[in-house]
């Protein structure tokens, strides 16, 4: 149980590192929303074990890392978590291409919330656009899915 929690936490830390590295390499932040993809995978794969606590903790850590008001990224990721849990059973039965379409919708919706919160916070520049982030995140989804599924199976992590 504790080991499983540590594995999920480690993947989330890896998500934060990927966010930093992609910013350093490409000079653009959040072109792919790595944290959203990782959270989405876990809430689909283990909906009864991974949920709001992991999501809110990750969001608050990202808030602290970006000097955003506390709750900003947590709210965005809660959107991903809630929608992920709502469609988890249906999404498991879909083929990868259909899953990519749903990932596009969920991440896109979450980033529209991001844009709304950014406007509320008084930020004048919102880049990249929510749809661009959603598109690139959907493109990366198959890779994230295979890598995280391999990790989960190798660690023998099951829902119950």
């Amino acid at each position: 149980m504790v080991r499983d929690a540590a594995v999920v936490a480690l993947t989330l830390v890896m998500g934060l590192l990927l966010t930093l590295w992609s910013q350093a390499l490409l000079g653009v932040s959040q072109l792919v929303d790595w944290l959203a993809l990782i959270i989405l995978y876990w809430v689909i794969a283990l909906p009864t074990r991974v949920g709001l606590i992991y999501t809110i903790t990750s969001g608050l850590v990202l808030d602290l890392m970006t000097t955003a008001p506390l709750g900003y990224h947590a709210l965005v990721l809660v959107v991903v978590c809630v929608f992920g849990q709502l469609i988890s059973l249906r999404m498991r039965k879909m083929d990868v291409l259909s899953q990519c379409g749903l990932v596009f919708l969920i991440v896109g919706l979450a980033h529209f919330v991001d844009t709304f919160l950014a406007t509320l916070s008084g930020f004048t520049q919102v880049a990249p656009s929510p749809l661009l982030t959603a598109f690139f995140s959907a493109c990366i989804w198959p890779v994230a899915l295979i890598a995280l599924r391999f990790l989960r199976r190798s660690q023998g992590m099951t829902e119950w």
Partner: protein
Amino acid sequence: MGVRALAATLVLIALFLADSRASWLDDLKVTGVNVVANIYGLAAIPENVWSSLVQASKSEDALIDQIEKLESANLVLQGRLQQMVALRAENTRLRALLNSAPRERSDLMATEIVGVAPNPNRQIVTINQGKHARVFVGQPLVDAEGVLAQVIEVADDSAYVLLITDPTHSLPVQSVRSSIRGIAEGTGARDRLQIKYLATTTDIEVGDVLVTSGLGGRFPMGYPVASVTSVDRQDGERFATVWAEPLAQMNRARYTLLVFPENFAPARASSSP
């Protein structure tokens, strides 16, 4: 799930509004930033390993050559510094003759940029000095070429700094040639500042160097900021549209200097310019 998600959302909205509008969460945030600073350390590992490998792969001749170049550059700078000391003394004497207050001096402390905050809305980087080195909010950060940023949040051993090109950043500047004053505002682009509130009749030209004017009391006077790249004067308009390019290496700077006021010595090794 539904009730829990709704409750969590309401709590997060309250937290978001509280942190956006008030400052009572600041101490808690500093504690949090101390913890998450380790993630920046983790993220820097591959780059540090790569730098070490590049350094290790350099031949002895290349290193000797590099040292010689640095020594000669240091010699030139030492020479300029001597001249600067004499000029400063002369300037102090002349200001005394004019009954003006002596110009404020400042101390510098070297620091390193260790990460770029992954925030698409703001241009923020992290440095590896914090409260333990007496870094404070509002402190200017410069590189070898000019003003780079100012500190906005301080943790124990790290701090977040806002680049002058951030759209929310404004900086009072002055032209070296004509002494005209203006406000340099960030545009969100790393290579562009807009100089605001300059009347169309103002004496400003392409190529003019802008330095900090010292107004506002946050940035000391005389640090280079930007060079004017375009001036557009439209008939009927009250203000000219003036664009400038920052002199500091906004994208490439790694080693930078924190500027301390004269009577606020940094806690670690420092040097006077």
